[in-house]
């Protein structure tokens, strides 16, 4: 079982602890064994411990410590946002966020929709059962 995701310059990582929890950041330089210099279009470049990062599959093409403009351009070129939002991991996070922000009324409407869907599925199942029986 070799490693597939490496810490390298240009690796996109997800922050899993701290003030920037849930953000996607780019590893822009490695400081020492434990820390990386990390940057993102909406944050000030700073250091982060690797333990606070979870590596993703996405990688962009940059040189060591690019300036903000170059970084943003590289992220656009690699289409990080869309790749992330279409990946199963990204989609899961979006759904989690949506569920956490649901209103009481929204939860009620979802309950009605689930019941309706289950009803339809059950009807189809009954039909199929009748055919095979």
């Amino acid at each position, binding site marked *: 079982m070799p490693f597939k995701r490496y810490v390298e310059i240009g690796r996109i990582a997800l922050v899993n602890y701290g003030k920037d929890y849930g953000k996607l950041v780019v590893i822009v330089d490695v400081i020492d064994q434990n820390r990386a210099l990390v940057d993102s279009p909406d944050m000030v470049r700073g250091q982060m411990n690797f333990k606070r990062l979870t590596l993703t599959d996405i990688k962009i093409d940059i040189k060591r410590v690019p300036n903000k403009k170059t970084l943003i351009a590289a992220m656009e070129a690699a289409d990080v946002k869309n790749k992330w939002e279409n990946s199963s991991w990204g989609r899961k996070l979006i759904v989690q966020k949506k569920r*956490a922000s649901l209103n009481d*009324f929204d939860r009620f*409407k979802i309950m009605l929709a689930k019941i309706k869907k289950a009803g339809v599925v059950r009807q189809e199942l009954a039909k199929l059962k009748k055919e095979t029986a």
Partner: protein
Amino acid sequence: MLGLGQRFPPFHTAFEPAALHRSYTTTESMAPKDRKPHVCRNPDLIRGVGKYSRSKMYHKRGLWAIKAKNGGAFPKHEKKAAAAAPAEKPPKFYPADDVKKPLVNKRKARPTKLRASITPGTVLIILAGRFKGKRVVFLKQLSSGLLLVTGPFKVNGVPLRRVNQSYVIATSTKVDVSGVSVEKFDDKYFGKKVEKKKKKGEGEFFEAEKEEKNTLPHDKKDDQKTVDAALIASIEAVPDLKSYLGARFSLKSGMKPHELVF
């Protein structure tokens, strides 16, 4: 000596201290409320030490100009003759021990501060009492601080009722209450009816009285109907809102109240 490098401003014309303008002249547009807040004339260098000395401040305040206008002396008002205090008679009785005066209490009774999330038309979840769990529409806050709510009655059986703010969760769902007039409802409307004192009568009398009191008077039923008519119209405009208000809220497995967004 003018060689000192200080400029002495000409008398009165080019340099008029702001103080003069404020009190003695009025501009056309100026109403007393239009004044800009005055910046401090003597800013602090450090706390307790001003930037300008006494003599400089005297000059800045323009007291020299006021004096000059008044012929060399600061204008004085005559002291109003103090009204002669009515002659007090010495009291007839001095208490042996000191009489304690009660402490000053300037607090005013106010209705409870209404949470910002509760506005007319908000759907509230009642948490205690016989209607616990019911989702209900908020109408207004009464002068006692209690909240006036209604089911509406046809939708979930909750009548026009008072509820305490502490026993309520405010959701972010709002219903349009512009068509509803709630002016006539106040705390007296909901108070217990004063019973007329009856002399102790026969057993028959008592039972008759009790039966009368149990039914709601017709005017209260009509009030409920008028309030609900407008409300139900606006509720039915939103899909699923009627069944939402008819259902009770309950915590299910996995729901963490501190993480739920209402």
